[in-house]
């Protein structure tokens, strides 16, 4: 018998010594990691200067599976941690990889303020519409009427429309895809790396174990069919019209792609204006190593 020694192209980006991962069969998070790795290959990002920061939850575990400088922080605080990392070492490319509950509920304040400041971060938000790690509770993204473990009779709360939220707060790049759109997602991640400023990519992703099952939406495969049939690509769509419902259309595409100075450019300009030659660039003097 001959054994083919073929390596998966994304393997060098993964901590294979930590496999198998904890994600359930049919979960979309692994798919997003695959797209992320492919985007890294295609965009030829220098891996040494790439850092990844996650919060807590199923998507928060991404930091533990990528072979990068990767930080698994506290619940909701991936963005402020990433802000400190980026400002202390501006040469780093910093990616925030976390879930909808982490980024938009407990971390919602940091999400809007980082977008307002236009900190140069690439945020990948895997939105499975619930808190999955803790057993499928209602999240700010849960569509109306959906059954969750803490809305057993259906959720009555209006849900966040995340693209609209981050656009209003100031993001320079906003896109949404589902885990069915693997090529488009990888391309979007690559585009975000080309942007300077706060970029936000929402990835609609199934949680067959807790969301799909409770709402009788079928298994992972059924969800892929649903994403395929109900997604509509609308680049440049007004983000006010891309809100999600439980069984309706999913508008995907690149909604926002604009330029405005990022935080570090603004800081530099302000300091030079006020201090002139007295201003000392932070990057010249930050490391306190022996």
């Amino acid at each position, binding site marked *: 018998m001959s054994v083919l020694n073929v390596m998966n192209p994304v393997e060098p980006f993964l901590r294979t010594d930590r496999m198998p991962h904890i994600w359930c069969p049919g979960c979309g998070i692994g798919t997003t990691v695959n797209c992320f790795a492919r985007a890294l290959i295609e965009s030829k990002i220098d891996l040494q200067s790439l850092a990844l920061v996650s919060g807590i939850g199923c998507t928060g575990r991404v930091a*533990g599976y990528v072979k990068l400088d990767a*930080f698994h922080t506290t619940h909701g605080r991936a963005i402020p941690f990433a802000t400190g*990392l980026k400002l*202390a070492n501006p040469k780093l490319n910093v990616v925030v990889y976390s879930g909808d509950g982490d980024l938009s509920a407990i971390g919602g304040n940091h999400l809007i303020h980082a977008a307002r400041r236009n900190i140069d971060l690439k945020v990948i938000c895997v939105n499975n519409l619930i808190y999955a790690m803790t057993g499928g509770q209602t999240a700010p993204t849960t569509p109306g009427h959906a059954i969750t473990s803490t809305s057993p009779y259906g959720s009555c709360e209006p849900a966040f429309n995340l693209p609209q939220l981050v656009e209003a707060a100031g993001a320079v790049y906003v896109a949404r895809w589902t885990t069915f759109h693997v090529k488009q997602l990888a391309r979007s991640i690559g585009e975000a790396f080309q942007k300077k400023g706060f970029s936000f990519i929402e990835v609609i992703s199934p949680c067959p174990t807790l969301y799909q099952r409770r709402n009788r939406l079928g298994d992972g495969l059924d969800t892929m069919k649903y994403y395929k049939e109900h997604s509509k690509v609308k680049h440049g769509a007004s983000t006010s019209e891309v809100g999600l419902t439980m069984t309706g259309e999913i508008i995907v595409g690149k909604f926002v792609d604009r330029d405005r100075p990022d935080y570090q450019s603004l800081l530099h300009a302000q300091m030079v204006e006020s201090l002139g030659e007295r201003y000392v660039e932070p990057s010249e003097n930050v490391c*306190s190593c022996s």
Partner: protein
Amino acid sequence: MKADPRGVLTGTHFIDGDHACCEGALAAGARFAAGYPITPSTEVVERFASRVPVVGGTFLQMEDELAASITLQGAVWGGAKAFTVTSGPGFSLMMEHIGYAAMTETPCVFVDVQRGGPSTGLPTLPAQADMMQARWGSHGDYEIIALCPNSPQECFDLTVQAFNFSEEFRVPVMLMMDEVVGHMTEKVVIPPADQIKVVPRRHTRKSVEDYLPYATDGDGVPEMAHAGEGYHFHVTGLTHDERGYPNMTPQTQDHLVRRLQSKVRDAADRICLLEEEGIEGADVVVISYGITARVAQRAIALARGRGLKVGKLRLITAWPFPEKRIRELAAKTKAFVVPELNLGQMVREVERAAGGKARTISVPHAGGSVHRPEDILKAILEAGR
């Protein structure tokens, strides 16, 4: 290692404790602060925001204390020395991230300029009622270091010391100021940079292949790497093994949590800084810290004027608690008198360490002002009886 002269404002100054704390941070090499305004601590970051752009560093005013207390840790992993400054309500919000710093062994400094509590309490008036919170405020078992300055000069000196301890042991260090010390203006002498000892980051010299982020030998403190250097390490607040990988077994938990504790406790003799005066042959020893130690000084003088043998012991380090020294003194002292601006926090530690060998008398004060020396004197007289 000597201080970088660019951050050291050598000279004799007439400044308050908050400003002196900022100068201490700059002298220690801090080039990053994240903060959120809160009385009576705000002057520290106001000065830092003004000073750091000409030194080469960053101040970022965050949206809240939750953000400030983790932003600074991101900066540390990016290579900076970093700190934040707050007071009671903000300190409460920072507790989770003190635990994260302890668990991930992120060297950093949290300054708490204590005011009256609970809740909003007395924003502009002093207290020392966060002492137990500094030690136990985050969940789980962990160890921190806490220092208590009693003058603007010490706000400078102990801020440098706080950074040095944080780097040496890779622990979060609390600088437990109080409103009076923070807002009191006195002479502060900042020495030349080459006379200020600065502990550098314990950065690994190992190759990428040989580096294990949480492997230790000797003193139980692991070597650090920074993001962007090619080490491709993983940091998590989950229980982790030497590789930094999550490993949620009772064995790994036991090994890790005990090491986090012992790396500090085993060095307690060196970390526990005390000021002692007139202890030999004293019948009564007054144990105090921060601003209260200066009021106690007056009470001690009054008691000595009445012929009593009274010693003074000032806790410069509150945590780890200097229990060994207290135990020694308990064997040859009639009583300890412990005034503090709370209803009895550190006195519990004194009582525990004394183990019944010496009487322990609390002189509580709910905060809002300092003690009257007469109240401490009364306790000394009772103790000497």
